[in-house]
Structures are given as structure tokens and as C-alpha cells.
């Protein structure tokens, strides 16, 4: 099965989703991220969804689960790059993404993480 690559940058992990997400890839990502956070001691996770043309309730739940599980493992998650049409649709769908930090792009997301926790390097 195709898996999403997780890049380590300083004390952060970056996942940039560039393909049409299948549900099984989403589930694998949760497990892979949990492993990588523990393995690397990363303090932050940035998930770039710039290329995603939709976020449905399954993907939304995945983002919330990743945020929650990374918190338990002492890392913060920021979701970056949500398209305006996706944001409008998410709100109408009824998904509030409570507890998920967001930023407009990867750079701002990383800045948010490092200023919040002093984890720049």
C-alpha cells in the first residue's frame, strides 16, 4: 500500500499530502506518525493539505485524531494550507475541527509551533 512520506525538519515532522487520499492511507498515516513522534522525539507536526481538494468527515476525523494523539505524545499539530472552498464546505458539513491549530501555509505553521513551544531547533 502507498504510504504518505513523513519528513523530519529540526524537531518537527512534516506531512505534505499530494495524492488523492484513500481511507486506508489515512489510517496508516495515524500509525506512522505516532511511531515517528516517539522515534524522533518531535515536538511538532505540520500537516500540509494544500493539494487536498476536499476534506470530508473521515479525513476531518483523522486530522482531529492525529492532533489528539500527538498531544498525548507531547507534540503539537498544525494543519496548514486549507483551500477556501474546502473551509466553506467543512463548516457547512458541520465539522468544526475543534482542538486543531491551523495556519495558512507551511512557513506560518512552523513559526506557530516554534513560538508556542520554543521548538525551533
Amino acid at each position, binding site marked *: 500500500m502507498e504510504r504518505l512520506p513523513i519528513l523530519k525538519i529540526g524537531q518537527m515532522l512534516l506531512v505534505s499530502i499530494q495524492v*488523492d487520499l*484513500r481511507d486506508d492511507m489515512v489510517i496508516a498515516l495515524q500509525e506512522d506518525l505516532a511511531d515517528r513522534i516517539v522515534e524522533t522525539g518531535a515536538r511538532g507536526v505540520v500537516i500540509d493539505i494544500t493539494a487536498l481538494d*476536499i*476534506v470530508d*468527515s473521515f479525513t476531518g*476525523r483523522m486530522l482531529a485524531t492525529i492532533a489528539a494523539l500527538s498531544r498525548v505524545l507531547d507534540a503539537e499539530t498544525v494543519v496548514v494550507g486549507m483551500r477556501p472552498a474546502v473551509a466553506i*464546505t467543512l463548516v457547512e458539513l458541520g465539522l468544526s475541527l475543534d482542538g486543531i491549530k491551523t495556519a495558512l501555509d507551511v512557513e506560518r505553521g512552523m513559526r506557530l509551533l516554534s513560538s508556542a513551544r520554543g521548538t525551533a531547533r
Partner: protein
Amino acid sequence: MTAQELPISGDADVVRVRQAVRAAAVQAKLSLVDQTKLVTAASELARNTLTYGGGGGALVEQVDNGLRKGVKAVFRDKGPGIADVAQALTDGFTSGSGMGLGLGGARRLVDEFAIETAPGDGTTVTVVKWAR
């Protein structure tokens, strides 16, 4: 455009249904936001067909009512059906592991929504989104 019948029997089929609905929505000249809403609704419904209906199919076609163009998508399964449709459409209700936003959420994202189901008789959900 002729109607396109797509099987739904795995995660990859859900992706294919999304892509077919997106292509039809672009052809019908739906706005980007309306395309996104329709494709998101289709994703929820295709996953329902797979998860709760045990698989089935989707029919995607362009429609034209003389005034406007639109896209119609029909999701069919021969699964156990839904005993209480009103309850299934309620936000937060789920019989599975989801968030309970699928059916009610999908209804909010489209212009027309119809559901035909009976216990033991499968489920058919029809949605239409019109170009503005």
C-alpha cells in the same frame, strides 16, 4: 455526457467516484465552492455505500432542467437498509465508527436529496447540485 456507472467495493473506488463527480461538476460549470460541496457529499455517500451497504455502485450524470445544468449522483447498495431514516439524518447519530455527519452533512451540501430504503432492502440515495 452519458451516465457513468461506477462500482464501489473498496477505498480506491471511493476516490474514483469523487474524481468522476468532480469531472461532471466541472463540465456542468458548477462554481468551485459548489464543486467542492458536491464532491464532499459524494465522498460521504460513497463511503456509506461501502461501509454500511457492503458495497454497491454510483451513477454519475449531467442533468439539464431547461434552465440550469447540474450533476446528479445516485448511490445504490443492497445492504441491510436503514430502519429509521430520520434518525440516520440526525447529526451525531452513527451506527459505525464515523462522526455521524455523513448523511445529514451530505444533505446540507446539495440542492436535492432523496433517500429510498427499507430494512433488508438496500439503500438508494440520490443527490443533485445545480449550477447557479
